[in-house]
């Protein structure tokens, strides 16, 4: 785990501001996508964020993938593929 107590208060504020900025961008991106697609088509793709997160944790943070996690990721990808082809 990262030791947050060592990072300076300024650094933490910067991280927070970065997080808010990224979330704002993602919100407006989501709105423009909603403008173009049906909600029932678009929403399942939101499940892919967990896939990205898990792979990032696996590759960058070197976390271990459990069997349940693999099953879940494969099901999400499969489901999204079904929705994409519908």
């Amino acid at each position, binding site marked *: 785990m990262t030791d947050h107590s060592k990072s300076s208060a300024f650094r933490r504020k910067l991280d927070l501001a970065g997080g808010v900025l990224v979330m704002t961008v993602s919100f407006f991106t989501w709105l423009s996508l909603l403008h173009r697609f049906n*909600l029932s088509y678009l*929403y399942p793709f939101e*499940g892919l964020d*967990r896939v990205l997160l898990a792979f990032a944790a696996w590759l960058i943070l070197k976390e271990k993938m459990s069997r349940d*996690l693999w099953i*879940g990721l494969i*099901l999400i990808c499969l*489901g999204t593929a079904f929705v994409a082809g*519908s």
Partner: protein
Amino acid sequence: MSSTTNQTKSDNVPAESEDEARRKRKSPLLHPYLQLFISIILTAASQIFLKIGVDTQFAPPWYTVSNFFAYWIWLGIFAVIGSLFSWLYALRSVPLIIAYNFAATNHIMVAVGSWLFLGEAISSRRWIGVFLVALGVFFIARPAARAEEKL
């Protein structure tokens, strides 16, 4: 010395029973599982509000002045904030793993909502996809809860 007395004092305090917790609650609305349910409903509702707002009130460049008065979109934003608060409230007493399992139904809620309220036609292939995604999120609940507990 003082730390040891503090230790024994806190040990002597009996754990709050479920009955006591219920009596302390001022309103039945604050039941944690009801709040969890409200949180999930609000998350799905926010998506539907946003979709209605984008379809009826939103003009493409996001900085267009009229966009700031699009009340459906504001409603969606407030629903997201409300769902976050009730989620955090529920997590004070609901185990994380159970909360995550409930949250997996979100994908189904959104699909049912867009079928009922937005009149979207959902093919059987899309239903299968939605259920597979929900099942996948359900499987991920356990590893996700374990990762969150570490934080």
